[in-house]
């Protein structure tokens, strides 16, 4: 067992862990932030996507020992002071979801993507989002939402 320190949504966290646990378990189960979802456990679906140091990653594929000192953002950390993030707003206004189970992962992946690609074209969005799966088939609306958010989102990096 070892002490692992990191921040989740801006708050410092320190956990006694074995190190081989997945970041998904750390976030969902140990820290009870259940917005991040399990869909496949093998990096294939993107439902578990979070940001580590502003880069979108699949938390099911990250080991707890590799998050020492990192800044992690999950869906719960996206809105600030009760105000929804532009990506969340755009997902609502475009109704870019149905069952909602892929939604957190979609939004987090879109966030990571938009931080690196401000105001992207549709083609670029599709490439950037390609490995996130939505069985309900909300893809076209998700692209619309990201396009809108890309215009709205302040260029400066949040947090």
């Amino acid at each position: 067992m070892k002490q692992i320190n990191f921040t989740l949504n801006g708050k410092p966290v320190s956990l006694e862990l074995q190190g081989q646990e997945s970041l998904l378990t750390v976030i969902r189960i140990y820290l009870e932030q259940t917005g991040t979802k399990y869909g496949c456990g093998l990096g294939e679906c993107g439902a578990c996507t979070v940001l580590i140091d502003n880069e979108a990653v699949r938390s099911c594929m990250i080991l707890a020992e590799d998050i020492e000192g990192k800044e992690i953002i999950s869906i719960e950390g996206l809105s600030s002071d009760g105000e929804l993030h532009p990506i969340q707003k755009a997902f609502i206004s475009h109704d870019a979801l149905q069952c909602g189970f892929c939604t957190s992962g979609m939004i987090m992946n879109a966030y990571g993507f938009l931080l690196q690609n401000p105001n992207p074209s549709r083609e670029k969005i599709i490439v950037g989002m390609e490995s996130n799966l939505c069985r309900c088939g909300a893809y076209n609306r998700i692209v619309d939402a990201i396009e809108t958010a890309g215009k709205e989102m302040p260029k400066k990096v949040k947090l």
Partner: protein
Amino acid sequence: MKSAIKSEAAYSRRRFIKNLGGGVVVVFCLGEVSFSSLFAQDGQPLEELDFNAYLRVKEDGRIDCFTGKIEMGQGIITSLAQVVAEELEVSIYDVDMIMGDTELCPYDAGTWGSLTTRFIDPVLRAAAAEAREVLLDLAAEHFGMNKTSLEVIQGVVSVKNDSSKKITYAELSKGKKIVRSLTKKPELKKAKDFKLIGKPIRSLDAEAKVTGKAKYSGDIFLPGMVHATIVRPEVFGSKKVKVDASKLSDFAGVQLVEKDDLVAVVHSDPEVSQRAAKSIKIAWEAPIAKANQETIFQYLEDTIQDNKVFESEGSLQLGEETSKVYRKATYHDGYKAHASIETHVATCYFEGDKVTIWASTQSPFGTRSSVAKALQMPLEKVHVKQIFLGGGFGGKSNSQQSIEAATIAKLCGKPVQLVWSRKEEFMYDNFRTAAVVKVAGGTDNNGKLKVWDFDIYCAGTRGTELFYAIPNKRIRSFNQAGVHPFGTGAWRAPGNNTTTFARESHIDVVAHAAGMNPLDFRLNNLENKEMIATLQLAAKTFGYDKEKKPGHGYGIALGQDAGTLVAMIAEVFVDKETGEVQPIRIVCSQDMGQVVNPHGATLQTEGGITMGIGYALYEEIEFNGGEMKTTNFNRYEITRFSKTPKIECVFIDKMDAKPQGGGEPAIICVGAAIANAIFDACGARVYRMPITPERILDALS
């Protein structure tokens, strides 16, 4: 079966009456036969059997609407609130939907078959209309005036022409406990008076979902809860022979649970319980493999003998003789998974002899009775709670994971969460069946269909009634229990995807053989006027006569499902070198009667089409007998962003008609529309779904 449902419903009623709070409550009781007759001109008198729905105008003026249906992304949490708000004359934001809780909601068999809008909408509208009348009566009494001189706007009753006299629903229902049960046909609003029905309303649950706050079954954590991992065999249907759990002592705090073939470990940390489960070695006795994904079709044809004639007219022989063009073909469709992004999950706890369960299920009441039966408990000792579902598509209709979780909870004496892994999901999903359809069809010199012979193996007959005028025809359905190497079940519009693929592909085959274009050929043979109008709307919206770019093709498919007529036209691009297909554009025209929420109906249609691209082009379960080779998304490609075409949905305008199904119909046409478009683009006729690049190249050579 019927009496079982009745007694379950009666139990619901007793429970409901016991729990009744204050306010104005309308209980809606309708017989099974008459509940769709609300829209009929001369509906029969309504018998009081049991109630199908109820709603309560609470003392704070908010409305609780109770239904046994569940929300899994199909948007009824929004569209049902919409019809209640319409009839009750309140804001849609004042309606709270309470869904699928077996102790609060009326009995419901399950959320499937695109039934909700068709059958629950009228019921809720009637209940809401009645509640409005009750409130108007109260207001009339309050003002000492006739009801006809009052009007309601947004939950406020006022005296017409005297805006100073008003009273809210909240004030009217305060301190009251009025229970009304509907016995007569209520006055429903006419389409011309609709304020909300027919208006696009965005999903009411979107904010909860974009913030991660929406709770699914796996998001419930209970004090002292343990995470269960079940040790599974590699082959479906295996029987346990011997268990070696000797390595379990390496894992502190792990508990072993065993009952019949169920072997599981539990621990408060899911990572520990998963590792511990891996240390258990079980010797299994596996059933012998009889087929794999290539041999299954021949196996089904050889094995199944029993058939039922579903539709028959004229003489097939005469039809063949009078045909100038006669074509036979056999169509194949492999097993498909539901592949919801949320796997099967159940979280449960026992309190004394009663179990409470949050389960990802399309049938909370079915789960209640299955768990009660499996654990030999009375029905009232099982409580299934309302929860969001991360997709269903027919795949969450049985209760295996709930029975497993409840069994484990009972044995280990702790609250339990069971989350199936994706691999378990690909083993215990009740797959859409592999199927074979043998078709023969012929036309005379005028391009009129003369004969149609349609033998369906394993896909059933849903939606196969012919809407083409054909004098000589026979539709038979071949089926046999237990022929499949693993579980099979309903998959979004059960069977209809496969049979529509076969029928509409073959219509094109015959049309081309007769030298006619597929649009004219269909119009030449359709007898259903509504289908003709639906197809014409699709063709016009699509611009079917527009010139195609090189390598592009157009494909049409027609179908019917859940009372809705569908006409779809697809445009694809096929790379002849690689056989890769790029879906470009799909137009879907539907006659679905009254469209309650056009926005919601559009979402469902887009979703169905997007999902349908997957079964048409990519999805196929690989297996050898009960041994699944497909264990995760890396071997089960579903539609992705880049393969989603531009989608346009149009609806036939019919606001006064009865609403029809919306969640399933559109998907049925995708296979054939794509197959026909591929043929049009490159000349490859592929008779088997998924239509992979390999199969296209094969067909071309």
